[in-house]
């Protein structure tokens, strides 16, 4: 009995924070728009009892999902989001791994300080940090002024309002989520393994590829998922830093919701996004589980 109640706590958590909101969104995605408060129909009228529920049920349909397949905009936006998320994740890995490696190699007494430096940006609001990139990247921004002053460039670089700015924003924002899991994997790495490899004639580079990388793989995988999953649905960064050509599903969803006032189609977009995200989320869970089992 006690075991049951212990197990049920996370499921209860999942039910309240995931399943119930999801069912509400799913229900709206099956409704039709209306000029009313709230702007969709039908709404469930419990006062009419069973008959009301049946009438409500009969009005639900999959029309909005069919609509998503009829317009190229939606799958293009999903694909474009997947691409942006994948490129950002790769960039974050390329930047994050050396940092994590450097932290793990650093003397013990430095590590808390380095860790602190990685976490420190979280003390400032995410929104303010993204906004400050506007000041850095804009045509008259710090970066351009600095480069012009150095004489590296003659005319200001156009970075702001392009995809490059979106990549910079995403990599910057999610970098700690890449660094921390890799660092924690590298930190546990047994240094004697590397010594043994070198004793047995491995070069340092070869030992790095044969030992360090495979042993830090769980951290790399965890870091990649932690960056990829939120980047896929990202809305704030592309809308602040990106230009009009940056097509992302988060922005499409916003437009359905706010410009078209079409909550049902917006909900259908969200349901499909979730379906796409479920695959990497399940893979991530598996990876975590494997790691836990290996840890035993």
């Amino acid at each position, binding site marked *: 009995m006690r075991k049951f109640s212990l197990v049920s706590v996370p499921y209860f958590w999942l039910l309240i924070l995931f399943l119930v909101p999801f069912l509400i969104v799913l229900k709206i995605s099956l409704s039709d*728009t209306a000029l009313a*408060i709230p702007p969709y129909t039908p709404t469930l009228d419990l006062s009419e009892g069973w008959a009301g529920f049946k009438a409500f049920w009969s009005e639900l349909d999959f029309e909005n999902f069919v609509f998503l397949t009829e317009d190229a905009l939606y799958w293009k*936006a999903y694909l474009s989001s997947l691409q942006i998320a994948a490129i950002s994740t790769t960039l974050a890995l390329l930047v994050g791994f050396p940092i994590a490696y450097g932290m793990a190699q650093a003397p013990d007494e430095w590590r808390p300080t380095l860790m602190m430096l990685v976490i420190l940006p979280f003390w400032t609001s995410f929104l303010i940090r993204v906004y400050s990139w506007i000041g850095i990247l804009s045509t*008259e921004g710090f970066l351009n002024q600095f480069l012009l002053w150095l004489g590296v460039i003659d005319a200001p670089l156009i970075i702001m*309002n392009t995809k490059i700015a979106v990549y910079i924003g995403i990599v910057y924002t999610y970098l700690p989520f890449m660094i921390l899991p890799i660092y924690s994997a590298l930190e546990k790495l047994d240094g004697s393994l590397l010594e043994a490899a070198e004793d047995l004639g491995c070069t340092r580079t070869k030992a790095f590829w044969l030992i360090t990388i495979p042993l830090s793989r769980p951290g790399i995988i965890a870091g990649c998922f932690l960056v990829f999953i939120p980047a896929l649905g990202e809305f704030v960064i592309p809308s602040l830093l990106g230009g*009009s050509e940056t097509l992302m599903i988060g922005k499409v969803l916003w437009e359905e919701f*706010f410009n078209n006032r079409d909550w049902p189609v917006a909900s259908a977009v969200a349901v499909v996004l979730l379906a796409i995200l479920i695959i990497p989320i399940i893979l991530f869970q598996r990876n975590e589980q494997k790691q836990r089992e290996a840890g035993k």
Partner: protein
Amino acid sequence: MTSKLLTTVAALALASAAAAEEVRVYNWSDYIDEALLAKFEAETGIKLIYDVFDSNEVLETKLLAGGSGYDVVVPTGTFLQRQIAAGAFQKLDKSKLANYGNLWDVISERAAKYDAGNEYAINYMWGTTGIGVNVGKVKEILGDDAPVDSLALIFDPANAEKLAACGIHMLDAPDEVIPATLKFLGEDPDSQDAAVIAKTEAVLMGVRPHIQKFNSSEYINALANGDICVAFGWSGDILQARDRAAEANNGVEIEYNAPKEGALMWFDMMAIPVDAPNAEGAHKFLDFIMNAENMAAASNYVYYANGNKASQEFLAEDVIGDPAIYPSEEALQNLYTKSPYDTKLQRTVTRLWTKVKSGT
């Protein structure tokens, strides 16, 4: 024990609610002299919570979701009309609005297009949608005879292409841009015909590669800092950019022009949501805003014309005397208004807009 505790908590909550009466106002960004907010609090003893938005769509979504918690909101006329139809507002109790007589009949009559009989809303500010130009840079690129007062500056791809590197921003508001594009084409800007509206696609797709950003608030700073050359935006916002540039003394000279082809005239209306927690306080706020001196202070600060006749004697000369803000009788004739789209047309318009913005 528990119930006793709950009662105490409830009593405390009630007591604090009574002690600090609150009015929550949701208005456009950069749209008031903030000294007025403190003045309202000092005069009435009501705590004012003032939030801002930068698109009608955001406001409408909050209203239609219900329970927005706001007591006063400021939608534009076209949106107001649809929201009234959706049952989002309560009728004003004009007996509580002592300053109602200060309103300007010319504007109230025009605004009645959206709110028949002026039952639900009062006009806060009104203005036109037009072209903001960085005079120096545009003339440098297009020559001294650059068409700075014509829609052709933006909607003719030959001009837009040359200005692209310098930067063009456009309102992210299909409700404003599509009528202007129709005007550029010589069509009825208030057309409700999907086939006519579809004609704008070719024009907009032709200039979209040259538009740096579709956004409805960033152009104030971008113009003022000299980051961009041209913005298609709201009159007062561009005039604010002009003044910020002048204050910063950064060598940037900004000018606002209502397009000579005709400009969209819009009305931002103050209304009280049907579920406003403090409708009484909302009326007090509206009455405070309708006070001639207060309204004049707001206009003097944001460079928009208002719908308050009595305020005109308190307006600064560079506001009442500026034809970009208070157009002449003749120029007023050249302004047009727009009706809301129905649901089906709205979807066509938004889809067109998405295509224009993203190329997809």
